[in-house]
């Protein structure tokens, strides 16, 4: 039976990951598809997944009663979406909406949390990789906050 392992192994986020760890991830992975306009998740919902975007475009939004949905960031092919599944109490802090038809691999966060508790090496490997993403997004957010182009 074909598994998602070859696809996961090619994703830049998992580059160089040991085979045994990849196999653990595959056990928590599934193919998903979202039509344009569909929400992958909404703020306040339980965060039980994260996604490797394979095709399409997803926008992160936050809803303001005065201004409506405000777009924060766009994610496209090759991006990793979501780390709230790693941070208690595991709730999404934003909405994620498919701007166009989007295909992704969803990783079950509950399943992975359990595996990480059992296999600390896997947990450390994943955390190191997520910290890189968090670092890039934090830098980007700081630049956005500086309103550089307004000077």
């Amino acid at each position: 039976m074909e598994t998602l392992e070859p696809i996961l192994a090619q994703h830049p986020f998992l580059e160089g990951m040991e085979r045994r760890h990849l196999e653990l991830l595959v056990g928590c992975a599934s193919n998903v598809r979202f039509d344009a306009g569909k929400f992958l998740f909404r703020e306040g919902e339980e965060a039980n997944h994260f996604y490797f975007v394979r095709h399409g475009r997803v926008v992160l939004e936050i809803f303001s009663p005065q201004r409506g949905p405000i777009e924060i960031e766009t994610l496209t092919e090759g991006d990793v979406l979501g780390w709230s599944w790693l941070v208690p109490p595991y709730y999404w802090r934003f909405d994620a909406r498919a701007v166009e038809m989007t295909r992704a691999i969803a990783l079950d966060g509950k399943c992975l949390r359990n595996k990480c508790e059992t296999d600390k090496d896997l947990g450390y490997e994943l955390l190191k990789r997520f910290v890189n993403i968090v670092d890039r997004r934090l830098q980007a957010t700081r630049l956005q906050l500086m309103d550089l182009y307004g000077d």
Partner: protein
Amino acid sequence: MIDKAPDPIVPRPFRIQRVRRETEDTFTVELVPVDGAGGTSFVPGQFNMLYLFGVGEIPVSISGDPNEGSKLVHTTRAVGTVTKAMQRLKRGSFLGVRGPYGTGWPVEEVAGSDVVLVAGGMGLAPLRPALFRLISRRERYGRIVLLYGTRSPADILFQKDLEHWRARFDLEVYVTVDRAMSSWRGNVGVVTGLIPKAPFDPSQTTALVCGPEVMMRFAVQELVRRGLNPSDIYVSMERNMKCAVGFCGHCQFGPHFVCKDGPVFRYDGVKELMWVREV
């Protein structure tokens, strides 16, 4: 009688042929020389000193097509006394022009390689002539990629050009904004975030970077992380220019004068200075 070279400190009168509003606070002026004697050629990346008589003089980069020799085109934001007054000028008004001054983008020298232009905010204006020149000699270059970031969809400059460039099969154009409402169909995020996925071969790419200095520092870091050699990266610096010919020292940048040694510098030549706070 011996012809004297024009005095670099004396402005030449130009007439405004057209004023175009780009965004709420940004405008473009098209200028033609009053004496009709030419003098409008320039190298992409250079700037002119524009003098609004009785108000003041400011440096403004040239944003027009270098292949179109009959007029000067300048785009600027109305932020100070001179630019705010300039924004109110109409067709037929006069401006004094000195220039062009400074160094340009190395568009001729980089033939054969991929070229990536990274523009932030108003930084698209000085890069626009470079892109016109690259397009006019398209066959000489590999991939040409424009990465443009600005504050919001309403702040996007040169919208018609961007649409036109996007429609071409031989250009890759990516636009991103820092913030947007859900009606915006494009990308949201900082311009540096476009660099990791942009389609160019880092081993044979030259990058031309222009925008706020903080943005340029982060853009350069991303380009280097992507694999570009610092000697293949060019930045356009901005300092307080007054005389524009290296006399007054207002625009001193370490051992350089931005007005005559710049504004375009090869990154490895100014790398250390870009991290010195006092410079």
